[in-house]
């Protein structure tokens, strides 16, 4: 399961970041922030060739020694990133995809909330719950 899940606004500032509490939170911030380099590159590369016929799931962004970082971009350019421990080899691509889909659905619900101002940090309990379900359960 994921060790860190993050969502970014179109302008690349964080809307939501949650990581497992056992490890250095700042490090995850840096990891997901740097992953945006690859996300941006992938978006611009796709934009050139296929127009809007684009796959939302970006796949494995880049592997680090310790983590695998996966990315997903909605049509409104909101980005989701899931960080998985490198040692976790049981996780399949399909499962990552379905995690993203769940995140996306939940995010859509957040957006539908009339009290939520798009661009503000996400504080929804429902979204939080979905994320919690995907995170590594510790202790």
């Amino acid at each position, binding site marked *: 399961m994921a060790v860190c899940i993050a969502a970014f606004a179109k*302008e*690349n*500032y*964080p809307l939501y*970041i949650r990581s497992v509490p056992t490890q250095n*939170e*700042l490090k995850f*911030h*840096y990891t997901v*922030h*740097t992953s*945006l*380099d*690859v996300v941006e*590159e992938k978006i611009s590369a796709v934009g050139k060739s296929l127009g809007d016929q684009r796959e939302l799931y970006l796949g494995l*962004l*880049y592997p*680090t*020694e310790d983590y695998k970082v996966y990315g997903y971009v909605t049509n409104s350019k909101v980005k989701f990133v899931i960080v998985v421990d490198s040692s976790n080899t049981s996780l399949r691509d399909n499962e990552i995809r379905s995690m993203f889909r769940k995140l996306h659905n939940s995010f859509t619900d957040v957006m539908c909330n*009339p009290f939520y*101002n*798009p*661009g*503000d940090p996400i504080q929804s309990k429902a979204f939080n719950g979905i994320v919690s379900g995907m995170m590594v359960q510790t202790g």
Partner: protein
Amino acid sequence: MAGSQWELPPELCCRPMAFVALTGLDVVYNAVHRAIWDAFCANRRADRVPISFKVLPGDHEYPKCRTKRTSYEWYIPKGILKTSWMNKHLNLVPALVVLFYELDWDDPQWKEKQSECATKVEIVRTSLQGRNTKVAVVLIQKKTPLPPGEDLVASERASALCNACDLSGKSLFVLPHTDHLVGYIIRLENAFYEHAQTYYYTEIRRVKSHKEFLNKTTHQLLFVRHQFKIAFFSELKQDTQNALKYYRTAYSLVHELRAHETNMLEIKALAGFINYKICRLCFQHNTPLDAIAQFRKHMDLCKKKIGSAELAFEHSAWMSKQFQSFGELFDEAIKLGLTAIQTQNPGFYYQQAACYSQDRKQLAQQLCQTGVSYPSADPLDTQSGGLDFYGQRSWRQGHQSIDPPDAEKEKMGILALQIKERDVPHSELIIALLSNAVAQFKKYKCPRMKSHLMVQMGEEYYHAKDYTKALKLLDYVMCDYRTERWWALLTAILSTALRCAYLMASVKDYVIYSMELLGRASTLNEEQKSRIEKNLFKVLMNEVPEAEPECDSSTVGSARSLWADRVALSGSNELTIEVQEYIPFIQCKARFQSPSFHVDQPIQLQVFLRADCPHPVSFNKLTVSLSNQEYNQWCAVESSGQESLTLVPGKTKCYNFSFVAKTEDVGKKVEMTGIEMMLGSDSGRCVFLSWRGAGGDAASAQEALQASRLSRRWGRSIETRQQPDWDSLTLQHSTMIISRVPKISVQLSHQSPALTNEMYCIRLTVQSHEEAVAKDVKLTAGLKPGQDANLGQATHVTLDDSVICDDSAPALLADVPLGDLKPGEKLERCVYVKCVSTGPRLFLFHVAYNIDTAVEGQQIICRCHKDETVTIETVVPFEVSVKFVSTKFEPLDQVVVDIPFLLMTDILSSSPWPLLLSSSSLQLLTVTSNTPQPESQLQQVVLQTGESASECFCLRCPSGTNSTNTVATGQYLITWRRKSSSSESPLIQSAVTLPHIILEQVPVYIHADLPSFGRVRESLPVRYHIENRTTLVQEVEIAVEPSDAFMFSGLKQVRLLVLPGTEQHMLYNYYPLMAGYQTLPHLNISLPRCPTSNILTLRRFLPQRIFVKPQGRQPDDASIAAA
């Protein structure tokens, strides 16, 4: 050299090349030998065979070959690979020894020389005892050799020499010392290369042959060693494919070795070597993915092989080195043409290397306790000064058992290593690796990764106590995180930066970072913020701040004394901080109340301030600078005495300023150029926070955007709130000063549309509603500038109505003085406009005046103006149509010379207003009037819309105008005016050009005299005149055709002659039989002498019909009576 223990040996990293030794060359004193040697070593480009040459003396001692082992049964290897082995085969044991010897085939002392050569060969052979090294002889000759087979002496002596030296024919070469030296040398070295390859081939065979003697229990190390050697020899043989294969086998064998704490280092060292070779070869074979896969595998296998826990830092150091050297290999390959991508570039490896170096530093700090002295008998010292085998411990070399042989020595050894590690400059290593990685990520478009690494570099400089460099780096990247709005990361960086600033006692930096950490972007908790704010106040009071909690206690002491010095230093206590680029704890937004102000209104300006820090802040001064500095004095507020200016956290405070604009600034913009706020006091330290423009900071634009989204969603509810919402406060950084609202009315009255060429009258009424006298009233009237340029030529404006203005009148009358206007007074003016062309025009009437007024007690003179514009359409007043007809009112195509014809004019009014036609006249050309004084028939005629007025003129083209071409006939002039205009107003003359006519000459002119009507059964006399207009006698035949309507008397058919210039008469008495319009009897005329002339033209002159009245009745009394 720092970390040299982990460097890969140079003999491993170089490209192995066959080693060939050259002997018998005296390169110092012999010029020929020198030239030969230079030819061998100069210009060794890629196209030359890969050989490393070395000149050795003839009696050089080569490394001794150990006696061949016949059995491995009792042999227990002491290690995997000797440290000297690679160097030995690269630089010490040649594949081929070449003996150079000067000898010509026809040398007189052949015998002696031959035996001397044989002796020299023998010496070389002896020193190579036991080695498979080949020997070759090169004879340096002065003469160019003959082609093979032709020189019998040569071939005979060659075979003799071979026998004497015990050489095969293939190992004897001749090098003529002639012009083509380099060519000979290249051929020679190719031959040497073949020999060398054979040598390495046999070496490989030799090593392979050991395999059968080995067993898997005791000789595991040898399996690795032999595979490595075979691979290395293959490389020397330039057989890289096989080399790769053997290295791969060696690699898998290395991991099959039984690993335990004592030999872990050796296994890793060898695994690292072999991995390096494999990756290098893969890159060389252009299979970078294989290289990467191998490296990943290598890392996965070795990551967990930490070895001794007390020396865990060694493992990190080794890991770091692995990543670094792979990164370098990758980078090298890229320089040779490989393309890397964003997600797979050397940067990642350098980064990881740096990461392991950081681990190493941490482990070293944990494991290497201070205060222990270095053991007196250095356990790291060896007799030879180095190790025999790669990766072994100096105090137990060659030992392969699981437990260390001597526990005490082991302890000492570990202690010694730990103490050594303490002195390693870790930060330097880490920074070097990070900067390598930064360079790579910059190249592969990873700006965020680059920033992240620069933060790490900054932190490392901080640890290395190089605060200046740390701040430089951190400052550089901070702005990236700020613009991307990653507050958590920004806060972390700022915290580090604040510590740096504290430790180097840099007041300005300290204040800047504190301010931002107190600001709304900071994610610090209230407690931390509160602490920072207290420190900030201390700095403002010129006191020493408290140390940052995470600072190393050892550094705090020196920082304190630095601060104490700084505080004691008098002067330079003022500092200005440009806060726009930051997110400071005091937010400032300013706005003009309105985007424009009239000059007679005071300009109002609001400055909103808000503090985000936990405690109230008081400040001493707030000033706004404006583009016109004269206003600045009105826009400042200063604390006075007890009453200080204080900001309460979370509350918005608003300061209002107002001032009166100068009349010179009308039409200009007043801009805020900056806002400055003074914190602290003159007695302590003054910090000026300075905002450019109307305030705002690095984050406020985005906040305003968010706020606007919110307000759009919630509609008006936000605007109705009492307290203005901070985020939705918008900046208004400039305002326009516009002139005072005029209190006069300007009215225009006119009767549109205007008619072409008329003097169109526009009546302008100006009435003053001012309370004072409007002075110096000026009118500007005319065509509004900025319309079609042609309109300017076709429009003329004047105030003079007495005459029609000409073309010199301007299109726009500027600044016509109208004098002063008292309150309530009215003023009227007529402006006349002459429009030459039709179409719409926009006219501008601009009335300007001066007035004295008072604003907030100040007397000012305002210039006011009022503009009125009006669009006026211009139409033609009437359409004139003109046609020529014959005297019979038949349309004429051609006009016959000297025969009268008629000009009919028709004026159709299209003006919506009644027109008065004053008169009309003709200005004739070519033709003349047939009547002596033609009088206008249209005088004083009034035309309503759609009505038309016609005129008829009888004209004649005088004889003698002999032209068959078209001729101009002149102009028709009409003078007119609007009926509504006053009788004094000037008349307008419109000229219509008459159409051109085609002239025609006729030889004979015929016309008839007849009464205007006939009466049934009453005689109707008709006289025909036949005129000859030529200078010849004309013969005319006339025949009258019978008609039902008439009886007639006269000549029915006649032929007559008409003399030039004379005329003949023919008289007929017609007797009408029927009433009504009757066709006269046809007169057939023909001119036999002039057959070309058209009979029809002649007939045209004759009347065709006549009206016949019925027979008259005598007035009958009876019938009248009956009626």
